[in-house]
């Protein structure tokens, strides 16, 4: 029993240090509130990396993923311009429905976070679960779109436009599944065992999820305008 009570204590103290930092650069002396107590062993046990690292990481990760898709997009634009025989891919109708599903999931995610702010635990769980289901629905919808194209005889190797269609949707779906994984992790985690607090976890998940949302709109626009 003493072990289990010690862990949340550490969590709280760490959060306090992080909150006192205010901004990405901890000011000098901002973290040495424990300087006077002299209990060195206690201090060492308490050292834990700043909890802000998760949101920093997700920001940098988003930039990196954006760069990945920008490279693909620039390849698309270069090949689209350079080719005279560009065979267009007829975008399946279901993509528009999928887009609506994804947009809706962003709204349910925000609702979930608002419920969490209001300390409405069951409401949070409901909306969070709804977001997860919508995420799966979107990926399923993308698969249906693939099946429809395959039924029309449009394969990944058919022409450059179809290659790009499959690569864009595929890469986006893989990244989105990462987001779904995060949603599942946050939804079903045992809160005592994790190092990251629930509000922080929901916050960084929402960053990523909204980014996936915006990225999809961008890719769809690219595919649509590139016809």
């Amino acid at each position, binding site marked *: 029993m003493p072990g289990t009570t010690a862990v949340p204590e550490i969590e709280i103290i760490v959060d306090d240090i992080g909150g006192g930092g205010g901004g990405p*650069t901890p000011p000098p002396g901002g973290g040495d509130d424990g300087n006077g107590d002299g209990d060195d*062993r206690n201090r*060492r046990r308490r050292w834990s*990396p700043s909890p802000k*690292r998760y949101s920093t990481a997700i920001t*940098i*990760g988003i930039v*990196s993923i954006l*760069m990945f898709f920008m490279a693909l997009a620039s390849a698309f634009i270069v090949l689209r311009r350079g080719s005279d025989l560009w065979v267009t891919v007829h975008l399946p109708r279901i993509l528009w429905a999928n887009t609506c599903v994804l947009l809706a999931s962003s709204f349910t995610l925000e609702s979930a976070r608002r419920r969490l702010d209001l300390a409405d635990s069951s409401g949070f769980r409901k909306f969070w679960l709804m977001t997860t289901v919508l995420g799966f629905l979107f990926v399923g919808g993308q698969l249906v779109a693939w099946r429809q194209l395959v039924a029309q005889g449009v394969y990944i190797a058919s022409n450059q436009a179809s290659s790009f269609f499959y690569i864009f949707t595929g890469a986006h779906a893989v990244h989105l599944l990462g987001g779904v994984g995060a949603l599942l992790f946050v939804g079903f985690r045992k809160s005592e065992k994790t190092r990251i607090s629930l509000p922080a976890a929901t916050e960084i998940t929402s960053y990523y999820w909204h980014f996936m949302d915006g990225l999809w709109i961008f890719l769809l626009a690219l595919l649509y305008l590139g016809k």
Partner: protein
Amino acid sequence: MDTYYSETNHEESPQGGFLSRYVFTTDHKTIGLNYLWLALFSVFLGMAMSLPMRIHLAWPGMHLPLLSSLGNSPERFAALTTLHGSLMVFLVLTAAPQAGFGNYFLPLQIGAREMAFPTLNLLAFWATVASLLGLTTTFFLSPQSAITLWVVSVAIFCAASLVNALNFSVTTIDLRAPGMTLPRLPLTVWAWFLNAILGTLIFSILLAACVCLLSDRLMGTHFFPVLNFVAHQPSGVISNAVPVLWRRLFWFFAQAEVYVAMLPCFGLATHLISTFSRKPVWKERLVVLALCGVGVFGFCVWGQHMFSSGMNPFSPLVFSLLASSLGIPATILVVSWFGTLWNARLQLNTAMLFSLGFISLFLTGGLSGIFLARHDLASAAAVSDDFVTGHFHLVMGVAATFAILGALFFWFPKLFGRRLNEPFGKLHFWLTFAGVYCVFMPMHWLGLIAHSRVSSTTLASLPGASSSIHTFITIAILLTVFAQGLFLINFLWSLFHGERVLECNPWRATTLEWSVSSPPPADDFGASDPVVYRGAYEFSVPEAAEDFVPQHLAPEQVVKARKAGE
């Protein structure tokens, strides 16, 4: 690959518990050290590969063991060149200064006890090992499957580097000790940090290019149609017809990759020069700006290579200007190095010698780079790639290696609690220094000779001269490579029998890693968290008792030390 494992086993595991202590540990120090072992193995493998290549160029008739046993065909030579390049660029130049030294010393220098995401760090390391295995295996496969495996390995390496870069930037942003403000960061940390940011941008691009290439090879798509065509031709037919798109994506990455390898080396060299000149870095803020500038410009000059390879980008002038403007941050760095060295009481130990060698090589290589930044000359130089090869190796390969070696001599006492042998090290330095100049200077001449032969027929009588130059280069290479044996002996001997370092701070340096015992304790800083009170380069401070003030020393302790000194 047995060699790699036996090497690590042999040197790293005195007792049991090997797996948990060295393989699956998330400790940043062990991971950093593992990267260094990996780089050490790769550098000797890569160097061993350059030998048959040069021997083949100098004496084409000779039957070489590795090449001829596998069929002495042009494909084997191309495979050897590719493998040499990929091992050196990815696993040595990218991995050693950044992932190796960075993993070990970045947390120590900023006063953190671990990286931001230790598990990811471990994952990235093993992904890097996997990519090394993949790259090496390619040599023993048929060309078609070898190319696919090569692309997969590079993609894995990209993913690992992305994770690493993410980890480094987050660690620097969020895990600094109290008092470690951005201006107080050592320049090594600045370089690692900026490099990590650059890495998150460019490795995504290479990853995207690899994904497209893989889908071309495995799923029959047509992102790079000509490249597939080329791959299916017999090797003699390969022409200049590498498609535009691949070039664009690849150079976007590769031009910046040069700076990915160089940035940490700039940081290391500056750090060492300041420490062993016993002087603060001259215009430290400006140096930080210059490092940023190298990153930004390095990211923007990818178009430079388009005209080097004969393709016209939007505007050669713009890229030529951008490439030349890289000279500005480079000049600032050089001026700062000389400003630091000016009137200094130099301590010419091996680490310092290697940093000075780095400056020399960087200056020489940089001068030839100015020629390449002029777009007409660049396209001419591309006709014969000896000039480019010389320039590239001098700046990126050898200069970076010098910085890495300097850093190794500098940090060896901290890593292993022993010193590398100094006389041996100095001998190794001078042999290598003379050797690389003998190798790469004539290579520039070869390039110029070939160029003049293309542009005019007056010098057509030169093939004799160029073949004797080839022979000279090859002999010089053989000697230089054997000089590295000295280093290997010194390294292995010092590891077990080197002079023990009992004090924490044998170089009397200022940064935080020197405030802990050598090698550092498992939790880095022992019982008390470090607090930082001043900048990283407080050397020759007038009022201090000694000629340096460490970053972690509280002001009242400085006063006390001064009184004791008086």
